[in-house]
């Protein structure tokens, strides 16, 4: 069948399984949008307020569903607005296909209106990118983009298509969904070697990252942990790979990890790592990282082995398959001494994390979980970036993989709104966005998208009137020089919500807005914080709303994320109580 290039693009997207795509029209993609119009009963397009929001929405869609997210933008500024979203997806290994229009071939290289070399711009932040020179290459290139995006270690792929290619007519024939590249067979010799190391270990620690979720390896990981009597810790990206309720689960380690998880990792004599890159946020000072441990490193990406941390044994392959093979190969162990130590650490961690009955970041999260439970909602949690993100990572319980949507590697403030819309679109599940007043301010324009699509997103703004994470660093390491972190904005999020057309609730006085004192200088912030009962009542109402709803909740501007390993520090420098001088 002969079709226009733009139609071939849309047909290829449909053929490759894209049911919902995100994007924003513009001069060099009008043809694509015309093709979308013609195919609107077969493919859903969500227009966001800004291309960045679209890129995060496609990313959130992919993270929550495991499918390839698709985003479309026009040339020039449309394309450059995708850059942060693409980089976010790249650093967290999210499968994404970004389609950009460009000026016609005849105008390329002449600094034409809205011309930008987007393949050049995105070179270091894509798994690969393509400039489609002619119509013959069009459909095969888009298929190739899907194959690359989802194979092995997933990642974003950009396809830049000049307008004349979109307008050319060419033969199109539907093709099947492209298969992922075959995964290399498990190296059984290496598995035997690993099993020997595991059998000889007295203090094994399983350490998993986002790769465990990509490979859906949670049950194999839990099975190995049971067999060798080992605890499981994770990076932020590994959260939700194994249910939080698993008794072996220690949760996140690293800069803001749980005390037990970080300390146990440091005391371990063997760390079995899977799907993680030993990021500096996880390891701290690498020369002091896990000094007592041998390291087995399993990853689908061979280049991760020995990149940041030298492993005693590296294994390239599927985490799911390697863990299954390891489970068969190892001896069943009971390690009462090690587990007694773990229990001790867990008990201490619980003490550290115990809360009173006032609103704190943790009690607010507890109240959200309780409300969701009562409402029978199986929620997805999305976050922005900052303190609220770490609190969410530390506190929420997760039952199933892909229910924690957060920008790990790039740490993109402003990620949350788009991501929450994408995640809720992919799953139909109620999505709670935990955000802060700083992050929310970055991309709150996407409220428009959430309202238009009636996305079931509960936006929970932990409002402390400051950029809390930077403030925390300023408190600890910069002599309380609160440079540009005390926002004191007069923005009324309730009115903002009203203007965008969604219901909103406030809990507490907002520093600098409904409270006369300026947060950051105020010595009595407690008076601005609402009560837990108030919060619970508001949450109950908010969860009854079908579409988007906002809760603006005051929290203490000096609430810290703890524990903390100072940047570049090691476990020896762990800060548990910042008021003590030890």
């Amino acid at each position, binding site marked *: 069948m002969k079709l226009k290039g733009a139609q071939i693009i849309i047909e290829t997207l449909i053929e490759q399984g894209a049911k919902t795509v995100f994007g924003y029209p513009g001069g060099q993609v009008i043809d694509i949008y015309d093709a979308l119009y013609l195919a609107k009963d077969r493919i859903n397009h969500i227009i966001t307020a800004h291309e960045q929001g679209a890129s995060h929405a496609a990313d959130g869609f992919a993270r929550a569903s495991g499918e390839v997210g698709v985003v479309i933008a026009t040339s020039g500024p449309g394309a450059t607005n995708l850059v942060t979203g693409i980089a976010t997806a790249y650093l967290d290994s999210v499968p994404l296909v970004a389609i950009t229009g460009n000026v016609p071939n005849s105008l390329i290289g002449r600094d034409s209106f809205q011309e930008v070399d987007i*393949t050049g711009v995105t070179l*270091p932040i894509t798994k690969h990118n393509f400039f489609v020179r002619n119509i013959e290459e069009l459909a095969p290139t888009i298929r190739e983009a899907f194959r690359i995006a989802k194979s092995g270690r997933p990642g974003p792929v950009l396809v830049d298509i000049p307008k004349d290619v979109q307008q050319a007519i060419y033969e199109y024939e539907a093709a099947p969904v492209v298969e992922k590249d075959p995964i290399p067979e498990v190296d059984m010799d290496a598995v035997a070697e690993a099993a020997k190391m595991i059998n000889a270990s007295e203090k094994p620690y399983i350490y998993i990252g986002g790769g465990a979720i990509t490979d859906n390896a949670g049950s194999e990981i839990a099975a190995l942990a049971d067999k060798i009597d080992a605890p499981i810790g994770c990076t932020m990206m590994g959260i939700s790979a194994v249910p939080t309720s698993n008794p072996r689960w220690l949760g996140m380690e690293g800069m803001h990890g749980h005390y037990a998880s970080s300390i146990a990792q440091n005391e371990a004599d063997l760390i079995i790592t899977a799907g993680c890159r030993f990021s500096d946020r996880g390891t701290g000072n690498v020369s002091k990282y896990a000094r007592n441990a041998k390291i087995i490193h399993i990853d689908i*990406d*061979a*280049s991760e082995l020995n990149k940041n941390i030298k492993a005693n044994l590296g294994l390239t392959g599927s985490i799911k398959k390697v863990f299954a093979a390891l489970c068969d190969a190892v001896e069943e162990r009971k390690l009462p001494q090690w587990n007694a130590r773990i229990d001790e650490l867990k008990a201490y961690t619980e003490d550290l994390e115990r809360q009173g009955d006032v609103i704190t970041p943790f009690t607010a999260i507890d109240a959200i979980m309780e409300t969701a439970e009562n409402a029978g909602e199986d929620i997805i949690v999305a976050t922005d970036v900052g303190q609220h993100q770490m609190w969410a990572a530390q506190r929420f319980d997760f039952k199933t993989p892909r229910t924690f949507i957060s920008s790990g590697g790039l740490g993109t403030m402003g990620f949350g709104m788009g991501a929450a819309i994408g995640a809720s679109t992919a799953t139909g599940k109620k999505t709670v966005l935990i955000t802060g007043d700083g992050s929310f301010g970055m991309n709150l324009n996407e409220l428009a998208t959430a309202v238009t699509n009636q996305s079931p997103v509960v936006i929970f703004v932990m409002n402390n009137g400051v950029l809390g994470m930077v403030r925390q660093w300023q408190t600890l390491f910069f002599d309380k020089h609160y440079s540009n972190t005390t926002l004191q904005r007069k923005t009324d999020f309730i009115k903002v919500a009203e203007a965008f057309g969604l219901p909103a609730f406030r809990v507490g006085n907002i520093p600098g807005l409904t409270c006369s004192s300026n947060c950051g200088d105020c010595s009595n912030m407690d008076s601005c914080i609402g009560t837990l009962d108030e919060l619970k009542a508001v949450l109950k109402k908010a969860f009854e709303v079908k579409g988007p709803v906002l809760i603006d909740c005051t929290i203490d501007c000096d609430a810290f994320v703890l524990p903390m390993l100072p940047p570049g520090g090691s476990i020896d420098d762990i800060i548990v109580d910042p008021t003590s001088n030890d």
Partner: protein
Amino acid sequence: MENFVISILVTNRSGVLTRVSSMFTRRGFNIDTLTVGETESPEFSRITVTHRGDKAVCEQIVKQLEKMYDVQKVQVMQRDTTVARELLLIKVKHFSEQRQDIMSIADVFRAKIIDFSQQALVIELQGATSKINAFIELLKPYGILEMCRTGLVALERGGNCLKD
């Protein structure tokens, strides 16, 4: 620190050299020399990179290269089974009384004089990097006006090929 010669077979497409070289830049891998040219098959180009560094870094370079879409094959060339050459063009200032000296140095190195004028000689030399370095050192006292080197190209001895 060791010297490594890395041969990379890539798809012959525009932008590939940028992709490969930008990977070196962004990951902080140094490049001593880089050459690129078409191979026996017009579909492929061959890039030869020389790199000075640790073995671990070299391994990381190879793995990062192998991940790239346009990279077909990567091989770290083994010194004893590799023939490697580079080409030097060098312009030396000369006064008539020095001409003979320069020409005899060129003779010893089997270099060719390819341009001869009142002011300068242009000499061509091909060979291993160390030979070229030695030649340049010897010519320095006469006044090197300008020079350019191609960087190393390398092939494995015997019948084995990179594409195999």
